[in-house]
């Protein structure tokens, strides 16, 4: 028997035939050098050969790839926006808020103690949230949200990580050249671009306690920590860090401008708020304080970073007259009556009939890991109900609040989130419709390929391939195209999503196109996370569309008349 490795022998026309009668079986030794045939049925073999020998399946793969990449990018960005919003909310103010704005409610310490006894609660903290006017060092006066917090705020939020001016050991993920001024200096030349590490540590400590010690007296002086976008003194770089402005212009009293340093903690802010009594009635025109900026903080939510100032809870309570105060009687006052003794002696004072407890507008509650916000909210409602019964008549009850007092971050933004969800669903729906167009495109491509392979189909039917086998050949082909195209689309889409911010910055620098406005979309950066659930759905949908596109041509091939197919030219 001639072997594969021997030189070819001229065909003489009289072959040496090894006699084999019908029905005999035998296992001759395979000749050496025979390249093995892959042990696949003909469908797998032909699918592989068709895929690598034709241009049309490549076009189909590209179609599936682009379609799935497009859906993945759109869904990831729009869906990621919502995910980021909810995640940032949790890190800002915990999972559940108990809120009675303006007038506030008393006995918050008791409420916090009750909450922290519960197994679902990781921590709780008091807060006052109000609006006020803030005068910046460059004389701009802006309406802002003023929040009073204390040390317990760190239990319900990521405040310790959000205080910006602090020593950092590692640069931001995209700061590959290490230009963040908070990083330690590498050498003397580098030191001119850095902030002194000891200064950063001092600033960090001041930021956490929301004040600083007077260097002369050692007395604690409350300060403010504005959002890092609020003053406009710190400039955000594309690499993700902030660079203090070298200087900022300030208008002087004679109308001219002068430059002031652009580093926020060197300046003061003037806060003006209007105090309210326990019934929500304003008690005086406004109260004003000029306080030093001790640090800045960054949540990642542009809206919060732009329009919020944090300050010491006690100081804000005093400004708003929400601290513990004496309750005075309404009886007519003898202007000449003397009350008290020694330093406390007063003339013409109304009678003290009691004490008004301190108030806060909000209690923030954080859930233990694994506890859903809605589950915690239900528990908080139960706890608050007991708290309200214990202080009946002195604190708002849930019926008065009509269910709006206790909320989650998602509920509080429900209108906005609902609109974004609908918009996301609409965009994704439109893109999925485009995927159907992709399926029709694959149908057209496969229809043409089936027509081209008509004779092959006739051959397969002639040698005994079944209709199902022929149909499976084409369905399998569509499946492979779907799998390959979806995998490539997943890679392409993921790459685009992960690098969407550098791409956006490049578009802005090179083409002058800037689509993402942080003031509109809440975040300074475009969401760039690919969720595995979405990726899986996109891949599965792409594969299904490809198989559906191949279905009709597969049926056409299966039911083709073999005789006509063999005669096809």
């Amino acid at each position, binding site marked *: 028997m001639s072997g594969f490795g021997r030189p070819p022998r001229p065909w003489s026309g009289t072959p040496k035939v090894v006699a084999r009668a019908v029905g005999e079986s035998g296992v001759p030794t*395979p000749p050496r050098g025979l390249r093995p*045939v892959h*042990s696949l049925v003909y469908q797998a073999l*032909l699918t592989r*050969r068709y895929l690598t020998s034709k241009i049309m399946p490549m076009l189909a793969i590209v179609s599936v790839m682009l379609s799935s990449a497009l859906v993945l990018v759109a869904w990831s960005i729009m869906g990621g926006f919502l995910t980021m919003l909810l995640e940032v909310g949790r890190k800002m103010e915990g999972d559940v808020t108990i809120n009675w704005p303006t007038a506030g409610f008393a006995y918050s310490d008791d409420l916090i103690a009750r909450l922290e006894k519960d197994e679902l609660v990781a921590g709780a903290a008091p807060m006052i949230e109000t609006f006020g006017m803030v005068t910046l060092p460059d004389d701009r006066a802006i309406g802002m949200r003023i929040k009073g917090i204390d040390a317990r705020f760190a239990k319900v939020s990521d405040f310790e990580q959000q205080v910006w001016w602090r020593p950092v050991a590692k640069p931001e993920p995209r700061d590959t050249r290490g230009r963040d001024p908070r990083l330690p200096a590498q050498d003397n030349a580098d030191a001119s671009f850095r902030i002194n590490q000891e200064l950063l540590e001092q600033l960090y400590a001041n930021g956490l306690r929301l004040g600083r010690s007077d260097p002369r007296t050692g007395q604690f002086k409350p300060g403010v920590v504005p959002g890092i976008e609020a003053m406009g003194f710190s400039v955000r770089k594309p690499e993700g860090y902030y660079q203090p402005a070298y200087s900022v212009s300030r208008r002087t009293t004679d109308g001219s401008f002068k430059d002031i340093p652009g580093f926020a903690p060197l300046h003061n802010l003037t806060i003006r708020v209007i105090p309210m009594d326990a019934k929500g009635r304003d008690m005086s025109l406004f109260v004003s304080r000029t306080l030093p900026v001790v640090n800045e903080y960054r949540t990642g939510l542009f809206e919060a970073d732009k329009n919020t100032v944090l300050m010491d809870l006690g100081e804000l309570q005093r400004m708003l007259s929400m601290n513990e105060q004496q309750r005075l009687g309404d009886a007519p006052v003898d202007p000449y009556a003397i009350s008290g003794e020694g330093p406390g002696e007063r003339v013409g004072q109304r009678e003290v009939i009691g004490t008004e407890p301190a108030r806060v507008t909000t209690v923030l509650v954080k859930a233990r890991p694994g506890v859903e916000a809605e589950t915690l909210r239900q528990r908080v409602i139960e706890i608050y109900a007991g708290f309200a019964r214990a202080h009946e008549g002195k604190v708002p009850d849930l019926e008065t609040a009509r269910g709006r007092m206790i909320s989650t971050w998602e509920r509080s933004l429900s209108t906005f989130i609902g609109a974004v969800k609908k918009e996301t669903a609409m965009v994704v729906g439109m893109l999925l419709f485009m995927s159907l167009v992709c399926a029709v495109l694959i149908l057209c491509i496969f229809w043409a390929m089936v027509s081209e392979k008509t004779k092959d189909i*006739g051959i397969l039917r*002639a*040698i*005994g391939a079944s209709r199902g086998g022929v149909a499976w050949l084409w369905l399998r082909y569509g499946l492979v195209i779907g799998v390959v195209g979806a995998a490539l689309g997943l890679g392409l889409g993921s790459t685009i999503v992960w690098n969407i911010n550098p791409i956006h910055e490049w578009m802005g620098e090179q083409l002058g196109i800037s689509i993402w406005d942080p003031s509109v979309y809440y975040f300074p950066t475009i969401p760039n996370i690919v969720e595995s659930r979405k990726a899986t759905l996109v891949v599965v949908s792409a594969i299904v569309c490809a198989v559906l596109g191949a279905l009709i041509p597969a049926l056409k091939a299966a039911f083709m008349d073999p005789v006509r197919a063999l005669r096809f030219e």
Partner: protein
Amino acid sequence: MTSLDTHPMTNTSQVDLSSSPLLEASNLHKTYRLGRVGVPVLRGVDIQVHAGEWVAILGASGSGKSTLLHLLGGLDRPDTQISLPISCSDCGLAMIGIRPKACPECGGAVDPLRAATTMPWDGYIRFRDQDLGRMSVGTLDRYRNESVGFVFQFYHLLPELNVVENALLPAMARYGRLGFFLRRQELRAKAAELLASFGLSHRLTHRPAELSGGERQRVAIARALINDPPVVLADEPTGNLDRKTGQAILDAMVQHRASTGRAMVMVTHDQDVAARADRVIRLEDGRVAASDT
């Protein structure tokens, strides 16, 4: 016509004409529709093929040879309703499959009493007493895969597969993924042996585009034989080859038949090719004109 007893390549001792036929057909009709007109190709053909017998079907182009082969191989089905012919009463034009109000040739009247009618087909095609007409589509597929081996005039190899893969195609269709995997060594050896017997050992990994006409036809023959079918149906296997190559192909096929006892039905228009067969059936206008031995 050369006698079977005198031709050196035949082996009449393998043919037992007294036994029941391996493959037989009775009263075969087949009409092809071209628009509204039916074109009758077979008009009642009978044929019997015994085990080990070589039957040549001879006839001019359009005589129905290939159609007969397709019906015997289960590639097509005969008509189940036979149209009776009508004729023009003026010019005598025979029409079948249409019912015109006037003769398309002379415009004369068509006898309404003899308008086209049909009658149920009462014929059969049997392989080892199994009626092909009663077989399901799946059973017919298995019949084509295991019981017959087709050899076509234009080879009909799959261009994306190499020589060995083309030869193994019927085996792949027969056994499926697991079965083929379990038998892969045996089947590879068998394909190699078959191809080697046709002098193609050095061409195993080549694609059809890299082969000559004769080589392609040898691959097609090997493909037809891979599942050891009892019957080989060859449709003008040498029709697309030069005389010398065609002769070599024919010799190879005959040699195989002689050594394996396989029956062969070969369609040809070449008298010399037909002369080498055990029996020759002549077709004219869709009918058997003569059956010579």
